[in-house]
Each structure stands twice: as C-alpha cells, then as structure tokens.
C-alpha cells in the first residue's frame, strides 16, 4: 500500500475489557480488538463489515477516543491520538466525527434545530454568531432541508429529516474523517437509498473520508472503495471492494458473501453451509479464531494464529490455507 496521503493510520490497536466476577475481581479479558492495523487514505470510503460482536463498533469508538485503547497507535493527520486523555483529544475530534446509528436521536427534544446545529460550533470554535449562523445555514442546505426548519423542534419534523439534521450537525465542524456506525441499519430499502445518496453527495461536496461500519454487505459493496472484514476482534481480510467481493480469499469472507440472499439467483437457504455462531470473545479458540466454524480447518490452524498476508494485489487475508 502506498503511503501517499494516508489520513488515518491504525497500528496494533488493542482494546481489552476486563471481565469481572460478582466480587469485582477480574477473571479474564474480553478482547474486543486484538491487534488491528490498517490505514485510510484521504477521500476514500473504507467499509468495515462483520457480524455483531466482532468489534466493529468498538473499533469506531476507540478511534474516536470514546474508549481508551489498551495498546497500539492511531495516527490521525500526523498525531498519535490513541493514548490521549479525553480532554487532550478534544481538539483533534473536531476533524474526526462519529455518527451514531440514528443521528437524529442525538438531537435534544427541547432545543430548536438551530440550537442543536449551533452547539458543536460553540464548543469547538470561537466563531462569532453571524458566522456560525451562516455555516449552519450552509450545512442545512447541503443535507437538503429548507432554512425554515431552523426554528422547528425535532418532534415537528419526520424521522428522515431528523437524520439529515443529525448529519448536518456532524458536518458543521468541517470534519475530514467521519466514522459512520451502521448508518442504514433498520431502514427500509427506499429510505436507505436516499440516505446513501445523501452520504455520497456530501462526501463529494466536502471531500470527506468515511469509515463505513456496517453489517450489510450489499450496501458496502455499493459505496465503499475498500473493505475490511472483521471476525472476533481482528481483521481477517482487507482489500479493494472489487477484489474482496469477486475473489474473497478468507473462508469467513466467502461464507459471509454466500449468506446474502441474491434475488433471482440460487436460494441461500438451499446452499448455505456455515454452521454455528461465533465463539465468545472472552474465550477465544487457540490459533486461528475462525477455525471452529471453518470448513477448511487443518491441525495447523489450531496451533498458529495466521497473520495478514499481502499475497494478492489490493488484498490481504489472514488465513494459512487461502490461495
């Protein structure tokens, strides 16, 4: 991977949560992130996919500084922000924004839209009021809402419009990287399509870089430039979207792709083979963590943990047997 214009670099990132018994004694670690490394180039959309519990949201929150990393580096625009205390990382967070599943739900019901949109600017900048107002109006137009909405309260607008306001609120600070955590899950297909269109147009307009966390592979395929597939706290495959979706190397990626229903094609319920569910992250299997469900598992897989191998153009996979 060329080092050219890497905006966010993550190296050996770990986040362990202590597991405590009733007497509050630590009895083990939950390894939510276990040695995660990747880098994000300016202006790209990196998709992060995986099943629930694989650590994708923990990754987003650790990058943001909502969780403090146990070990590892997060280099954002040249500064290591991983081990900073929350108040120290505040000045970097202005340009690194986190977007929750439903950004509309983070609006205060007792504030007008104008109030909610002004707040981040008051916290992070010392712009005078007229300039803030101009910025707020610009962002509201960018997300496709009329300026008359500024004086309304959240309950007076629809859920879809609340989402747009939530996005506008994130964008008022002109971030360079936005972490989108499941921005379309739970939405109907038609609403999902309009939100995706909006995200893409905002990305073009403001030159944003997205980290797109999702479990919906068909959406990721559509809008991401590169994809990282996570399983139990580790990236098992990463590469350009085209390469990962057409020639998945890791057996886990292959099963994930095989599980998506394709309308008009063969029915997944007739062909799908992957059995079982992911093991608990507090008690990981030895060696490769996918081996308990892997159709190709060999004795070697139980002994050695496979590293990410960069054996293919635009693609890396952590599997002993992939070819």
């Amino acid at each position, binding site marked *: 991977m060329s080092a050219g214009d890497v905006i966010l670099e993550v190296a050996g990132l770990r986040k362990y949560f202590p597991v405590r018994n009733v007497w509050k004694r630590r009895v083990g670690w939950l390894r939510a992130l276990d040695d995660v490394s990747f880098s994000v180039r300016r202006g790209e959309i990196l998709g992060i996919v995986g*099943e629930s519990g694989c650590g994708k949201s923990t990754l987003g929150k650790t990058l943001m500084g909502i969780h403090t990393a146990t070990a590892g580096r997060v280099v954002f625009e040249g500064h290591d922000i991983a081990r900073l205390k929350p108040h120290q990382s505040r000045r970097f967070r202005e340009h690194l924004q986190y977007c929750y599943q439903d950004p509309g739900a983070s609006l205060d019901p007792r504030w007008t839209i104008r109030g909610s949109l002004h707040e981040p600017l008051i916290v992070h900048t010392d712009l005078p009021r007229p300039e803030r107002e101009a910025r707020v109006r610009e962002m509201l137009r960018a997300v496709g809402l009329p300026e008359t909405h500024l004086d309304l309260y959240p309950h007076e607008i629809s859920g879809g419009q609340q989402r747009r306001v939530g996005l506008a609120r994130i964008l008022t600070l002109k971030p360079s990287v936005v972490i989108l955590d499941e921005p379309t899950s739970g939405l*109907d297909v*038609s609403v999902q*399509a309009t939100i*995706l269109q909006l995200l893409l147009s905002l990305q073009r307009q403001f030159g944003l870089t997205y980290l797109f966390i999702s*479990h919906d592979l068909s959406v990721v395929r*559509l809008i991401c430039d590169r994809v990282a597939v996570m399983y139990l706290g580790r990236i098992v495959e990463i590469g350009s979207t085209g390469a990962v979706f057409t020639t998945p190397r890791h057996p886990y990626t292959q099963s994930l792709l095989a599980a998506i229903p394709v*309308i008009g094609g063969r029915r*997944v319920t007739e062909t799908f083979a*992957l059995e079982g569910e992911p093991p608990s992250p507090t008690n990981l299997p030895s060696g490769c963590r996918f081996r308990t469900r892997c159709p190709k598992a060999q004795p070697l897989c139980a002994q050695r943990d496979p590293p990410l191998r960069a054996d293919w153009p635009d693609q890396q996979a952590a599997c002993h047997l992939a070819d």
Partner: protein
Amino acid sequence: MAGELLSVRGLRVSFASDAGSAQVLDGVAFSMKAGEIKGLVGESGCGKTTLARAILGILPRNSARIESGEIRFDGRDLLGLPEETLAREVRGREIAYIPQDPSTAFNPVFTIGTQIDDLMRFKSPLLRGGTDDRQGFFNRYPRERRAADRARVLELLRLVQLPNPEAVLRKYPHEVSGGQRQRLMIAMALLPEPKLVIADEPTTALDVTVQAQILKLLKQLARERGAAVLFTTHDLGAAYEICDRITVMYAGQEVEEAPVDGFFGRPSHPYTRKLLDSLPTSEAGIRGIPGEIPRLIDPPPGCRFHPRCDRASALCRAERPAPERIGPAHSVRCHHRIGAAEPAG
C-alpha cells in the same frame, strides 16, 4: 376457495391518537392456503404488523378499532368468536406467533425449561379434545402428559439444531445467544402443532449467516409439519428465500399479490417496481423512491400511492383500483399497471 386456510376481506382498522384517528388498514384483502409460506412485505408503517396482530386478535384494545371486515380462519370467523374461545382454542394453538425480537419475548427470571413447560401445560397438542381441556386455578399438569410433552419438546429442540437440549432447558434466556433464542422461538411456535405460524420479521435482529440458518430451518420445519407461515418482512431478499407467494402492502392497502417468481420477475404495480429498484445492486447504483410515506391520519384519497407515483392520473385520486387478475395467482390493484396496454389518450 378450496384449500383456503385464512381469508381476510375488507379489513379496516383504525387507531385513535391525540391528533385524530389513523386509518392503518384500509380495506385489506388477503388470503393464505394451507401449508404455504406467504410473505407480507412493505416499508415500516405500511400496516403489516397490524394485519398480523389483527389475525391473532392481539390489537391493543384501548386504541385500535376494527371498523369493518372479516377474518375467516379454517372455517371460523375469528372476529365473531368470544375472547375466551380465541384464547383457549385459537391463539397459541391453531395460530402461533414468532416475534421479531426473541430477547424480549422470554421472561428473564424463569428458565427456558419453565417457560416451555408453561406453554405445553396450556397449549400442548395432547390436550386437544381431552377431558382436562378446561384450565382452572387448581388445574394440575398430569404426570403422564408432562412426560410425553417433555419428550416432544426435546425432539423439537433437536430438530431446530440446538446443541444439548437438556442443558438448554436449564438455562436462563440471557445465557443463550440471539440465534439460539430465535431457534427456541421457532420451536415454541411449532410445539402446539399450529396450522398457521405468524413470523413477524423473525430475522431482522440477526446477522446474515445466522439469518440464513434460521430461514432455512423455518422453511424446512414448516414444510415437514404442514404449517402455513405468514412471514412479514421489509427485507425482500429474505422474502425471496422462503416464500411461495408475496403480498405487498403500501400505507395500509395491499397493492400486489404474486407468486415469488412473478413478483420478482414481472412486478406490475409501480410501487412494487420502485421497491425492487431501490434494492442496492452494483449495476443500477442507488435509487430511492422520491417523497415520503403518507401520514395515516389524513391519508391521500383513492390509491394511497398516487402522490409518489409517476403514472398517477385523476382517476387514481378519485377511487381505489379494484384487484385485477393478470396471471395465475397474480393480482394487482392499479389503474395504470406496468405491462398493461397503454390507455388511449
């Protein structure tokens, strides 16, 4: 019609709210044959859950009102039956329910075994026609029936591929994973040997790999046991996987009903077409449906889709189209359906 298990005709349901009364179901017609898997698809707020709940008779009593219509199930008019009969003979026996979120459907303070025992005590198929059918306060759970029920439970838990069923029965709901809870829900729905299982978005809370397993299981078990399944979902991919026929609803009106191949191969209602177009595919890019779903308190007259429809005419505003049969088991309610001869003028 012969072989018809369920038929809903002209069902109108309204909900009272502070802002007025919302017309959530507007003259819905719907039918199911014995043993078929039928998909009920539509966006949130289109009334699919309300329809499912109306069939079960569990609409909230203080806000929902059934204004007109009839629901016939297996030769009986469900809306005319007294509540006691419904509770004893129909709900949980003839018609079972699989909820969307299996984590809230269990009681967290009892073991799974206790909860399944309670189910079998009152809804076991062995009760059917028996003398201890009527449940009283001091009703005991006869030991012989309990043992027979237990054997059935273990057999079915094995069929839903739960590892070590005896151990699962001793666990509390929080000790098993989401996928396993949904397997338990499927088992519990099938235990009373119902004729109809209503599965309300059973896989939305699950990951794709688990979803594929659950859908496969539901389809296979329903087929083996001859139960019909009403499968409500907003995920067209999941509907494609297991359904025989699909009904599409929009804002409280059913707009198209088709066998699964006709539905995906030859969508005839403009809404169905737009819904299929908004699925993310790499060829077509991203296409949404312009506009928003209407408010049900003051819905648009006639066909409720007309404000967002590019084929709409004055006729669409004036009256709701009647169902038109355009193929075997394929009917559509649209004045200007796709594929019709272009109207003169």
